[in-house]
């Protein structure tokens, strides 16, 4: 059981992210929750490719040639950059909403009249 400790960490971080996304009223905190879920997914991808006792897949002065899997790390790099792009987009929407309504509370933003 203790060998799956990274997976348990993934589940806990992802759960905190879901909690922030569903129960928090502030839009900035919703975006923070989305980032937490995304970080959990990145950690899950990297820990899937872990080989016991392996080193990073770089040959420059490597201690050994027993390496972890390189493909999940490359895909995680892609995922991180796309996460940065979506976060910038969401935060700019939050700024526009704040200027228009004067608040970031989702209950007050939700009203459709006027």
């Amino acid at each position: 059981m203790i060998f799956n400790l990274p997976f348990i960490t993934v589940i806990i971080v992802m759960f905190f992210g879901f909690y922030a996304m569903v129960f928090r009223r502030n839009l900035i905190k919703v975006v923070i929750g989305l980032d937490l879920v995304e970080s959990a997914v990145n950690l899950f991808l990297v820990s899937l490719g872990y080989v016991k006792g392996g080193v990073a897949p770089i040959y420059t002065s490597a201690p050994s040639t027993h390496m972890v899997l390189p493909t999940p790390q490359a895909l995680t790099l892609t995922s991180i950059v796309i996460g940065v792009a979506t976060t910038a987009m969401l935060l700019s929407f939050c700024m526009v909403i704040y200027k228009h309504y004067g608040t970031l509370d989702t209950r007050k933003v939700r009203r459709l009249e006027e």
Partner: protein
Amino acid sequence: MMSKIVRTQANFLYPFILIFGFYVVAHGHITPGGGFQGGAVIATGVALVAVAYGYDTIKKWIKKTHLTAAEGIGLLCFIITAFIGLSTSFFYNFLANSGLIFGNRVPYGINPGYLNTAGTLPIMNLAVGIEVLGGLSVIIMYMMAYGREVKQ
């Protein structure tokens, strides 16, 4: 604009952040790092100066047009480098092991690392680094300009 202590620290740290970022970009094929990571490091340097001096001062030094142009030029260089190898296939590494620029043969196995290797990878690293540097910096500049407008 923040206090003089913060501005002095930003002045001191800015060149080192830039040098470290370009080091990460240029050594992307032999050490951990690459274009995205190095570009993000350089963008943090721009963010540091922007926070220390405020938007009204920084907008005279760094033009948003230049950053947008850097972003476009980076993406264009990336696509052009990918298209040059089209005689074999898209994204073909035509410079590797060819003896031209970045074309030295790398010894197999563990080695101390040689800069003049890896074919088109350093060119693509540089192109993507320029693109990410321009993109993240221009996002910071847009947000600072808009936030100042919201505050008024």
